[in-house]
């Protein structure tokens, strides 16, 4: 069964460093998402991406964040200068459609980001 994959599973970085989190969505999916979950809290939407551009973003997704689909398979989230409060689990998700019955979002296993 196809699945969303994410690398690395755990990333430790120093405050102020840049990190890139990588995701490979399900191959025939068209919509891609990033969410984050601070430990013990609910899952929060960061950004959605369709047709090579951002379709929606939350207030969390400020200028320190960017997303890219550099090739036909990868979808990346970059944090330019990490802060302590960026420590969280980051989930990538993908869906075949945004509005039809095929809009279930399938999640990857997550990347745990720890900022020291």
């Amino acid at each position, binding site marked *: 069964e196809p699945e969303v994959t994410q690398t690395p599973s755990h990333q430790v970085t120093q405050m102020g460093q840049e990190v890139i989190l990588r995701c490979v969505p399900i191959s025939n999916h068209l919509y891609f998402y990033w*969410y984050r979950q601070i430990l013990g809290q609910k*899952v929060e939407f960061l950004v959605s991406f369709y047709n090579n551009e951002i379709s*929606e973003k939350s207030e969390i997704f400020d200028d320190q964040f960017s997303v890219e689909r550099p090739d036909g398979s990868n979808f990346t989230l970059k944090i330019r200068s990490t802060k302590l409060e960026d420590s969280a*689990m980051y989930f990538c998700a993908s869906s075949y459609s*945004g*509005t039809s019955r095929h809009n*279930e979002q*399938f*999640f990857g296993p997550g990347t745990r980001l720890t900022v020291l």
Partner: protein
Amino acid sequence: AQTVTQSQPEMSVQEAETVTLSCTYDTSESDYYLFWYKQPPSRQMILVIRQEAYKQQNATENRFSVNFQKAAKSFSLKISDSQLGDAAMYFCAYTPGTASKLTFGTGTRLQVTL
């Protein structure tokens, strides 16, 4: 803005018994989708069940079923014949029919006891 509320931070059920997890939501949309996701200790998010708002029939998936009350904006999850593997955090989530982001509730931690 859409909001999703899960008023039960923790629930406990005995193995083989039935448990119901509550979820309410607020929206002005008429067309939308509701989901229940399970998050085991591995923290992977696993889709359990979905409900389209235009469907009156409640969704079922094996031991999992929902009670969708559109007028009351309520979407509860019933787990029948609970198993030890059902122990996890359960998140209720909402997405409008015309947008794509999921709005999650704060979750309910389900314990399953012998």
